[in-house]
């Protein structure tokens, strides 16, 4: 174990928070079996685990959003339990979630009033987060998501919490804003307050956190000091005994130009997107790298038929196409896997129905649906993706990773030529992530064309054979996977042109 520079020399400081044997089940589904967590005062503590490991449930119990079925919570040595978030807040425990909890229809000011947040302190933390002079009469409905995240964070900080929980807050933040969040977390640590940090990004965890508690299947399986080099250990803990060696790092090699052109985009303009042209070939995974809001959303929306471009052409199979509706794009073989599973799935319906949905369009337009044919195709897709079907009656009860697999499975069963993946692994654990990237590569190897945007730059090399970089709505860079390591991509994504010279 690595000795940490900022660790106090005292062997074991009295823990600020001590949770033992926490358990929670929802009907037959056990979310948390026995979770233990000790957080010291003045510590940034990571909470890690695959999707469905119980992180969110644990956070909700600690902040009073859920009541545990069993186990104890001690705060500063005193046994405590919270029956609602307001009580936890009074005790100095507050959580900021990935999706901001500001009410969209109340002004920021009214939101602060609703939670009895002191305005002056809120302003002070806003300054620290780089939003000084922010207009409090703004309506959250009209604000960008990263801004909302920062506002939500500042609101939580304004009550001067003893323990701040950050539940994947960085997932929807661009890199520069992430840095601001880290700085604030470090400041809290220096004031002997504590932070519980949840993120799927190992790099963030090792850069920020003093210790990490790893959960698997609702149990605490280890506490690790995530210094440089401990990443593999954390991954192994999260994956458990079934951890298989996934070929990591070996960039997919492909000879794209040998294959036919799947999609050609010519001088596309839509919203921020100005004059983007590129070709996507069958048999390749073309990566799209960009910071938040550089036109990637517009690009994918146009290709998937969600939005109509202002000018420019999308050429599929040698013909310029106009997609009036996603159905047009699907018919042309272009299918979308959005970042937000909720956009794609019918959450109250079963796994089978969700997978079979596009089949209904095809197998038989009118008249009854043949359950047998449907079942066969659905089952083969489920098997191929190893979808956890224990709770298959309602998709919303699956974990995020499994929900995303259902979206992929739908198109596997439905058939497609070009797969448009828009940040398909957002908020998904490493194990599932690797499966999804493996699958994407396999699909390309079998002749499909894949366009893949991911907000996590290091993952570009894992899956892609070629990368295009968008900045300010323009295509600023094209490189092969071999060149596209994180520093190169980061520089290009920030619009710094001299990449080739610098490296």
């Amino acid at each position, binding site marked *: 174990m690595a000795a940490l520079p900022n660790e106090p020399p005292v062997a074991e400081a009295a823990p600020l928070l001590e949770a033992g044997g926490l358990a929670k089940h929802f009907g037959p589904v056990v979310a948390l079996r026995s979770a233990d967590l000790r957080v010291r005062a003045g510590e940034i503590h990571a909470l890690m685990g695959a999707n469905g490991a119980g992180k969110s449930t644990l956070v909700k119990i600690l902040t009073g*959003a859920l009541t545990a079925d069993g186990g104890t919570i001690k705060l500063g040595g005193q046994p405590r339990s919270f029956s609602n978030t307001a009580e936890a807040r009074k005790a100095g425990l507050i959580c900021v979630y990935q999706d901001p909890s500001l009410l969209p229809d*109340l002004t920021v000011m009214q939101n602060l009033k609703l939670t009895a947040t002191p305005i002056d302190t809120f302003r002070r933390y806003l300054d620290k987060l780089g939003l000084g*002079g922010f207009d409090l009469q703004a309506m959250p409905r009209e604000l960008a998501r990263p801004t909302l995240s920062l506002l939500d964070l500042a609101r939580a900080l304004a009550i001067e919490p003893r323990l701040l929980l950050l539940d994947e807050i960085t997932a929807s933040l661009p890199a520069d804003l992430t840095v601001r969040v880290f700085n604030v977390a470090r400041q809290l640590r220096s004031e002997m307050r504590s932070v519980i940090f949840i993120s799927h990004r190992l790099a963030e965890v090792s850069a920020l956190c003093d210790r990490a508690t790893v959960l698997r299947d609702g149990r605490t399986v280890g506490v690790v000091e995530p210094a440089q080099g401990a990443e593999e250990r954390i991954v192994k803990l999260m994956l458990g005994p079934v951890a298989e060696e996934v070929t990591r790092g070996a960039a997919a090699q492909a000879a794209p130009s040998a294959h036919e052109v799947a999609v050609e985009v010519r001088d596309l303009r839509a919203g921020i997107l100005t004059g983007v042209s590129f070709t996507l070939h069958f048999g390749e995974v073309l990566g799209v790298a960009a910071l938040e809001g550089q036109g990637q959303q517009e690009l994918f929306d146009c290709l998937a038929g969600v939005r109509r471009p202002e000018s420019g052409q999308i050429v599929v199979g040698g013909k310029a196409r106009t997609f009036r509706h996603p159905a047009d794009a699907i018919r042309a073989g272009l299918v979308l896997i959005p970042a937000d599973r909720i956009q794609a799935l019918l959450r109250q319906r079963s796994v089978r129905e969700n997978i079979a949905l596009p089949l209904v369009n095809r197998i038989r337009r009118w008249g009854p649906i043949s359950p047998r044919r449907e079942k066969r195709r659905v089952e083969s897709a489920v098997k191929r993706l190893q979808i956890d079907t224990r709770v298959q009656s309602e998709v919303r009860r699956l974990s995020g990773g499994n929900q995303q697999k259902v979206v992929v499975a739908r198109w596997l069963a439905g058939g497609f030529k070009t797969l448009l993946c828009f940040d398909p692994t957002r908020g998904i654990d490493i194990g599932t992530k690797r499966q999804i990237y493996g699958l994407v590569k396999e699909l390309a190897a079998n002749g499909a064309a894949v366009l893949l945007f991911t907000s996590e730059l290091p993952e570009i090399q894992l899956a892609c054979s070629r990368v295009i970089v968008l900045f300010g709505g323009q295509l600023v860079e094209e490189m092969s996977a071999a060149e596209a390591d994180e520093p190169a991509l980061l520089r290009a994504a920030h619009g710094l042109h001299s990449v080739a010279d610098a490296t």
Partner: protein
Amino acid sequence: MAQTAVASQPSRRAGINFGRAVRRYGWTFAVYALFVLLMIITVIIKPDYGPFEWNTLTLAALPLAFAAVAQTVVVLSGGIDLSVGPLMALANVLALRAMLGHDLRYSLGVAALVLLVVTLAGAVNGLTIVLTRVPDIVVTLATSFIWSGLALLVLAKPTPGIPFDVQNLAQGSALSPWIPNALLLLLVIPLLWVPLRRSRAGLSIYAVGSDRNAAFRSGVNLARSRIMAYAVCGFFAGCGGLALSMTTGVGSPLAGTLYTLSGVSAIVLGGVSLAGGRGGMLGPIAAAYILSLIPAVLIYLGIDPNYGQMIQGLLIVLVVMIGGLGVVLRRR
């Protein structure tokens, strides 16, 4: 980690922000503009339009305005109350039964008691919805029959007999012929609503309607806020029932029940989002006046006022379509 400082947010100083004012209050302005336009048309059609006609309009609009406001509170909280009309009927017949043959002071005491009873009935609606988790539309449909039945038990058929002193509270014009009492009585609405809206309790009504999950995380007591919304709705429905008593002088077990749906029409026209969380009271009040003006205009034009219903329907569809068009255009 990237250290590049990207200026992600333009920071704006507070001040008058015209674009935002239009976005937020545009609909309300438009509803008032529509009302003024209709009034101008009315005066053109009927050049001798005077205080009497204006008084008649305010009398017709008063119960509807209360019905609309009552529904607005619940809709803002993300619910719906189909029992607003029957609650009004209940208040109406209770008032008649208790006031019959008494003087003004006694009647005012009765009015206060009636308001209390109907507020409690509203709270019962809310409590049932929260406790049983049966959808609001089902619960209030069921209670609408119960309140109607109770109203019929209290008074089997329309009966006149509201004391004249009480009727005069609404029917006269104490200040000036152009400011009828029925217009002044609307002040009950801001008297309760403005302080409530500014309080955390009122904000939490908007909060539960806006995003229930975010409201929960913000520490809002969802059950309490929803029950309160239904109770306030009951109070305003009670005001509506009393308004019916004062404007007609009659207690009728059925008259009030019609106000459920016309109240919903008024809030749609008034710019309250049926999805909850968005809207205010000013729009629905103006909409109540618009909806009450239409039958009068038809009479002035010599058209069968029964067309009024159809015109009301067309108007709502048209207005909502124009509103939708506005949203689409703004997105462009």
